């Protein structure tokens, strides 16, 4: 700390007292006998503060004015000869930093000396408590906002990161509304429609119709295929076997089966039909006559579509709102039941299924409009 101070004091006795005090305080005191002497050495001494003894000539008020004229911001501390608050306040109004009272002692002057290097102004507030409340409210609101933002962000981040991905099946609208069978070929999807009595071949890329085959003699109720054959089950109970050529040439036909099957599939070894109304699943020999081998009772609630692959039987069950997986060896036991999100639509009726390459394909109608979609096989 810069410790040079100037002391204006005419009395030798007072000088002696003050010299000892300021020495003890660690100040480098430069004494002047009067104002003229003080101003003469002021520029050279460059004191941090001026202490001036009251009662001399000129009066302290004039000393204050002159000193402040030379150094407007220098702290000036009058040393009063007696405790006079009114005079002290007047001197402070005139520019004194503070006033020391008599008797001048080290204890009395220590805070004044140490404080003398700092001086600014009084802050004014119209209503500090209200301001503080507003500040507190603003701080709380800000904290609440950041807490909410952080919580929401964390929640959103956690939701995005940890919640299971919603399965959005790829859905395609069909320009016909009564699909009864669906077959997945290498580069196309084949769908039969009973109302228009046709086979619609859709492109795999954009699901546009690439070919329509009219079936004037057949009203298809179910359809399935193998590597080299296509089976069409008619509403009369007859199942036709056709080639997978351009015209789906008929090869053979069964006698009318009873009950009339409305679902069919070939697992690579056996042929399966289903009568959805009774929930009867029939295992058949894959010959031309599709001779019945064994009947099973569907173990779910309601079966509306049916298919199989080389490992499992699959069924769509609107009452369970699920896809049901069954064993080929024991179709009366459900292996897996997996919720089907598409059943969120109450008007959806799934009427055909196919399984290929780990995907399950569905065709049906929803509110009078045909649609097809697929999802991954449940594990």
């Amino acid at each position, binding site marked *: 700390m810069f410790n040079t101070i100037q002391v204006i004091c005419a009395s030798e006795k007072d000088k002696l007292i003050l010299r000892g005090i300021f020495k003890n305080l660690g100040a480098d005191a430069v004494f002047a006998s009067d104002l003229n002497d003080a101003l003469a050495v002021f520029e050279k001494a460059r004191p941090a503060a001026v202490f001036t003894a009251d009662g001399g000539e000129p009066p302290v008020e004039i000393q204050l004015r002159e000193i402040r004229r030379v150094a407007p911001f220098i702290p000036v501390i009058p040393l009063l000869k007696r405790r006079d*608050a009114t005079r002290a306040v007047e001197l402070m109004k005139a520019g004194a930093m503070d006033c020391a009272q008599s008797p001048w002692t080290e204890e009395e002057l220590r805070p004044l000396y140490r404080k003398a290097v700092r*001086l600014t102004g009084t802050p004014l507030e119209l209503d500090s408590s209200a301001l503080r409340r507003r500040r507190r409210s603003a701080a709380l609101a800000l904290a609440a906002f950041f807490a909410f933002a952080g919580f929401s962000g964390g929640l959103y981040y956690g939701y995005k990161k940890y919640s299971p991905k919603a399965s959005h099946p790829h859905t395609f609208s069909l320009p016909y509304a009564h699909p009864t069978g669906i077959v997945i070929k290498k580069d196309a999807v084949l769908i039969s429609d009973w109302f228009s009595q046709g086979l619609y071949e859709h492109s795999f890329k954009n699901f546009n119709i690439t070919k329509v085959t009219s079936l004037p003699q057949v009203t298809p109720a179910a359809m399935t295929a193998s590597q080299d054959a296509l089976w069409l089950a008619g509403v009369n109970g007859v199942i036709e076997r056709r080639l997978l050529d351009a015209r789906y040439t008929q090869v053979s036909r069964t006698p009318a089966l009873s009950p009339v099957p409305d679902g069919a599939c070939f697992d690579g070894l056996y042929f399966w039909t289903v009568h959805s109304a009774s929930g009867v699943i029939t295992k058949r020999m894959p010959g031309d006559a599709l001779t019945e081998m064994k009947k099973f009772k569907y173990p779910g609630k309601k079966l509306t579509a049916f298919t199989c692959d080389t490992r499992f039987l699959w069924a769509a069950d609107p009452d369970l709102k699920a896809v049901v997986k069954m064993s080929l060896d024991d179709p009366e036991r459900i292996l897996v039941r997996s919720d089907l999100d598409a059943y969120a639509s109450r008007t959806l009726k799934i009427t055909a299924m196919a399984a290929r390459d780990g995907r399950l394909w569905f065709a049906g109608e929803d509110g009078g409009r045909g649609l097809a979609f697929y999802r991954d096989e449940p594990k």
Partner: protein
Amino acid sequence: MNLNSADSYIPAEIKTSLDLPPLWGRLGSLSPGEAELVSHFELPRGKVIALSFQLGRSAFEEIRARIKKVLRDEDGYYNYSLVFLDPAQAELLRAAIAGTLPPSV
């Protein structure tokens, strides 16, 4: 932060009792309900004092306040947190401060 301030610390006369000569100090901050007083005189917490000071063109005489908190700084000065006791005096202070502050406040 409220940056409104007087051009210097406001000097104040401090009356502690009728029997003793008054003391002095400066107002570190001032609001209608509270003030901070800086003085090298020591006063006890809880004591009721009367302040006289001038704010702008208004002179306030014997504004009664209670010392709420006392802190001594490293220089040896005492910083007193004061609460004004008389609502009528506080209202006068409010008007004076409002008149002292610039119109934009």
